[in-house]
């Protein structure tokens, strides 16, 4: 019988005060196969680990059971410890007597009994454990950053500065994202473009960064360290290799269409640069509005281009590239409030605008050159109502979550209005004011001192009265209905996941939550990793965020990617699915159920059992790099041809038998 050592941890008083650790050790000693049992105050501590290592030598132990906290806490610690011994680090079982026992039971006697049960199960499994060996896989030293907003820009720069290649992918013709649209940034009121455009230029000039604009991810294959991504370079009809960005084409283009960058507040041409500081600073043709591409007539840009860059025959191109790490930085979009709030006019009133439209109005490079002119008649508003939580904290109409940045955006907008339009009155309708950031509360306080009137309540209705928009709602502090006759209404709308991000997450195999945000591997302890190895997240794609948080997260996620790319090869967990090919009938039931796309069917040579002739037959194969050991396939396989190493059926059944037999 293999010799098992059982080590019971007091965890200070965490465990020892809730159950009898001495009795557990004593009971363990009597279990079949157990050669040694001991208890100690902190097994994870240096002396605790030494105690285990000494016992292994002294008693010739072959397997180890540690009764302590959750394996999520210290399994890795104890595996590392075993690497110093003669025992394979996978001949280790953790009996979780803290989270699953001491912390959740009040009865000392019964908790002790349960601990003994848990130890008995762990010993039974330990006796069936088999040594496992980690495999190594090579790593492609290049990172893909998806999304060229401030998150993607920061992540790409950090990776590139660390000496690794980064490819920054952006579906729009320029990087910059939403930050490029903003006027000022709270709470310091730095000009947004002044702080973001230098970073954009750095991206364009960095020798380690390849910038791919007007590009999207088409397909993703592979696994951590070894992704192959098919990138679709969308046709932009301008040869950027020779274009100098002189702008002659933009000046002559006869088409006028709504500028999405200016949120519909101005027109742009069909051949256009997204905004003046665009990177790359070269125009593209929007095929949907270009006369030449729509009906073959025009061709003015081609005639005026001095270098012959225009190519109306341009087509989408697919490029395949290899990456070791992927960072998802797809950001957000402002909620389409028009669909949610009929009572706010659903878009019928030109002077009800969203926060991002206001950013463009107040921006010196915006459609009004920074003059706050209301869209309907171009007059400067005297009274402005700002409504917060439009689409946020409103599960009936929009989303249950708080969009986090809007409280400060509203304070900033109020400040800008009072600052730029002396004598104007600003009313801010709010549910709560949330300012948990450095300098945020002070900024909000100052805005109120400057004269912004904060009204606690939601606006129930906006209607037109003469030249003004009446915002009617309850002031819940006064307990009265109030009406504000406003010239301009600004809605601070909710953030929603960027359109198309769901499909991208599907390609990557990443999970998303009920609202569509990317799910992190652990909300507290692994906040920038996804559940897919080698895929990290940055910025608002994980949930609403302001710029400081986004940039911090982008650098964190770059650090994770750099850590991965610094290695030449990496160890993969050997606790993965193993297919017994002899039993596998190749039905493929395991493939579609695998969340990591780790299983593929392959043909293997075989002999026909009837005729003895050589044939080929299908069997399932597991990719060790992709498999995360979740075990879904083992349940899907009706034959039971798939077993999970480290959690084999017979190992689990031993545990079950130990409990109830």
């Amino acid at each position, binding site marked *: 019988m293999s010799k098992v050592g059982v080590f019971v941890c007091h965890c200070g008083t965490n465990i020892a005060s809730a159950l009898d650790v001495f009795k557990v050790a004593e009971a363990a000693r009597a279990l079949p196969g157990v050669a040694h049992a001991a208890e100690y105050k902190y097994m994870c501590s240096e002396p605790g680990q030494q105690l285990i290592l000494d016992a292994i030598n002294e008693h010739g132990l072959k397997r180890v059971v540690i009764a302590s906290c959750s394996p999520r806490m210290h399994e890795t610690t104890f595996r590392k410890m075993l690497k110093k011994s003669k025992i394979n680090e996978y001949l280790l079982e953790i009996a979780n007597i803290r989270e699953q026992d001491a912390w959740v039971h009040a009865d000392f006697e019964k908790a002790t009994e349960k601990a003994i049960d848990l130890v008995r199960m762990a010993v039974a499994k330990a006796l069936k454990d088999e040594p496992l060996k980690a495999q190594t896989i090579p790593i492609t030293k290049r990172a893909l950053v998806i999304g060229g907003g401030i998150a993607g820009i920061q992540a790409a720069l950090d990776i590139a500065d660390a000496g690794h290649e980064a490819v920054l992918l952006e579906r729009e013709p320029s990087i910059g994202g939403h930050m490029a649209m903003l006027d000022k940034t709270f709470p310091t009121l730095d000009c947004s473009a002044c702080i973001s455009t230098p970073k954009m230029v750095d991206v364009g000039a960095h020798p380690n960064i390849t910038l791919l604009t007007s590009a999207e991810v088409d397909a993703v294959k592979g696994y951590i360290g070894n992704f192959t991504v098919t990138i679709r370079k969308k046709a932009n009809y301008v040869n950027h290799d020779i274009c100098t960005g002189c702008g002659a084409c933009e000046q002559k283009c006869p088409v006028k269409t709504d500028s999405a960058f200016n949120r519909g507040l101005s027109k742009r041409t069909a051949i256009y640069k997204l905004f003046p500081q665009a990177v790359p600073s070269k125009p593209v043709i929007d095929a949907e509005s270009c006369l030449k591409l729509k009906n073959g007539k025009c061709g003015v840009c081609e005639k005026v281009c001095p270098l012959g860059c225009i190519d109306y025959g341009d087509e989408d191109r697919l490029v395949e590239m290899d990456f070791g790490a992927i960072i998802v930085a797809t950001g957000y979009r402002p909620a389409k409030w028009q669909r949610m709030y009929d009572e706010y006019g659903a878009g019928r009133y030109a002077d009800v605008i969203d926060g991002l439209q206001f950013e463009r109005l107040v921006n010196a490079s915006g459609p009004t050159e920074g003059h706050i002119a209301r869209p309907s008649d171009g007059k400067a508003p005297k009274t402005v109502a700002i409504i917060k939580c439009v689409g946020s904290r409103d599960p009936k109409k929009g989303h249950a979550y708080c969009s986090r940045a809007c409280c400060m955006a509203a304070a900033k907008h109020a400040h800008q209005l009072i600052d730029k339009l002396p004598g104007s009155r600003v009313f801010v309708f709010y549910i709560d004011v949330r300012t948990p950031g450095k300098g945020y509360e002070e900024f909000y306080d100052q805005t109120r001192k400057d004269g912004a009137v904060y009204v606690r309540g939601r606006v129930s209705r906006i209607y037109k009265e003469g030249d003004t928009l009446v915002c009617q709602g309850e002031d819940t502090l006064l307990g009265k209905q109030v009406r504000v006759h406003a010239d301009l209404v600004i809605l601070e709308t909710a953030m929603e996941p960027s359109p198309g991000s769901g499909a991208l997450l*599907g390609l990557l195999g990443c*999970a998303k939550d009920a609202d569509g945000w990317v799910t992190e591997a652990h909300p507290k302890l692994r906040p920038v990793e996804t559940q897919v190895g080698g895929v990290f997240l940055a910025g608002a794609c994980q949930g609403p965020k302001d710029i400081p948080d986004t940039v911090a997260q982008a650098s964190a996620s770059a650090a994770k990617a750099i850590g991965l790319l610094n290695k030449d090869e990496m160890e993969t967990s050997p606790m993965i699915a193993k297919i017994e090919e*002899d039993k596998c009938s190749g*039905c*493929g*039931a395991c493939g579609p159920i695998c969340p990591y796309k780790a299983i593929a069917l392959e043909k293997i040579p075989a002999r026909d059992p009837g005729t003895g002739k050589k044939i080929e037959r299908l069997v399932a194969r597991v990719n060790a790099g992709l498999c995360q050991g979740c075990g879904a396939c083992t349940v899907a396989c*009706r*034959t039971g041809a798939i077993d999970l190493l480290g959690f084999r059926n017979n190992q689990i*059944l031993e545990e079950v038998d130990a409990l109830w037999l």
Partner: protein
Amino acid sequence: MTNGQKQQLIRDRAAALLADGAVSCIVGWRQTRFAGKTAVCFVRAPEDATLLVWNEYTIPLTAKYLADERWTGGKAGILARGCDSKAINRLLRDNQLEREKLYIVGLPCEGKADERCRPCRQKTPLVYDELLWEEDSAADGGGTSAADADAPGRGRFFRADEVSALGIDARYDYWEDVYARCIRCYACRNACPVCSCRECYVDMHRAGFQSKRQNAADNRVFGVTRAFHVGDRCIECGECERVCPMGLPILGQTQKVIQTAEALAGAPYEAGLNAEDENFLGKFDLDDKDAFM
């Protein structure tokens, strides 16, 4: 067209296909020694085509034999009704057959002398290379009318409905009685067109959770496991129940799985309609409805 005329068509076509080498065998039905019982047979020579029969008793599924039987070289010709075609789709989906090695002779069915054929909704094959005749909606040989199939207790899930109608205690006793009588002969498994594992878990030397002993407890484990192994892929042909030598009402089990799956998904579900659909319980989708979890 009478069954006799159809039988003649089948024999002629089978002989022709074998004679010109288009197929190396024809899988069809022959008469057994017992009146009212036919069996699936493999005809390999044109002159043997006269063995083939078609009547209200040509009930067994041909498709499963194709997965079991090995044939060498060329294509296998198979006589297929709607149910056989659903079985073929399942076997194709499970990679147990290759479409290019099949020549499917489609035979629209008029319903057979079996209560399990009554709710059949697929008399004409879904997949075939040729049809020997067109479905005659007026014909009603042995089966029952569509209106009757919708009548209470006679619908698609008639067997499950019968058992569901019992009270919970009566239902427990009902299944206890079923498992006490089961002799674990595995005829249900062998006949089932979706039981296509190379090695069934019940035959394994050590499966761990299922012994080879024959008693009510182990029979129950087998019964429930079988229902779940095939439930979401069940083509509702009723072969399992038909071949059971103890006459156990086991079609109700898979019917119940499908009925429950439809209720959970809030959408109709039928296996074997094509060779591409993922198994109902065997797919992973981030947007899965998980109200039951």
